[in-house]
């Protein structure tokens, strides 16, 4: 069976689903953050595949911006996690319940 657009979209959906379950199942904030990154990457796979099969540049350029935003997001997010760890000495999500109730 020749590889077409559907194969790439299926791969993208699979990666997104794996990242989603990582966010749901893991309790370590850093791993949850990595899974969020995986979901972003899954979206970029779909964008590049669409761009390739329609022979346009829009999707490719959008991936460019996603990469930049992801880099900025990681920097800020990890700074928040470090600040959180300095204050509470933990990054396990079940211990971070200051906003509960």
């Amino acid at each position, binding site marked *: 069976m020749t590889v077409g657009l559907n194969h790439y979209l299926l791969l993208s959906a699979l990666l997104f689903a794996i990242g989603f*379950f990582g966010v749901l199942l893991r309790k370590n904030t850093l791993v949850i*953050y990595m899974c969020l990154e995986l979901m972003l*990457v899954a979206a970029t796979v779909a964008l590049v595949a669409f761009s*390739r099969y329609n022979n346009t540049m829009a999707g490719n350029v959008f991936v460019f911006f996603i990469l930049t935003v992801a880099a900025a997001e990681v920097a800020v997010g990890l700074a928040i996690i470090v600040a959180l760890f300095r204050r509470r000495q933990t990054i396990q999500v079940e211990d971070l319940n200051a906003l509960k109730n």
Partner: protein
Amino acid sequence: MADLFFYAFATFTVVCAAAMVGLKNTVSSALALLLCLVGVAGIFILLDAFLLAALMVFVYAGAVVALFLFIIMLLDAQGGNRKPFKKTAYVSGGISFALLTVGVLSFWKHGAQTTGELGAIVPVGSTLKNYGEQLFTTYLLPVQIVGFLLLIAMLGVIVLSKKFEDLEDIK
């Protein structure tokens, strides 16, 4: 031949992603993410987006994962004992699993009806010139905004990593 490469890279990527979620050790998770991103870069090469594949390796695999590893080793916060899930967590997990399975399979059933006949077209995303042309004409304003966003992120990180002595504790 390209099909074989696609299946190889796709399997590699999915296995590494699953390993990232499944592995207990945080450092192993980060390294699995690194391998997964390299696999995605391979997929990008198969889609003729060579610049994006290189950027994927430089920015994600190089900078982002290195930052993650740095923070993991700095904090040294391993998993510890984890409480078991509640019943509601199992129910919501089951429902979301069912929904995602249906979503993924609907790509297969009702997805785009394009076949893989792309050999004749010169891929527009393979040349660097097209990226430069697009980024500095059509997408000039977004480029400026993203540059500003990076500046704001840098300032935010500097402010966040300051010590706040006068803040009372939220325990």
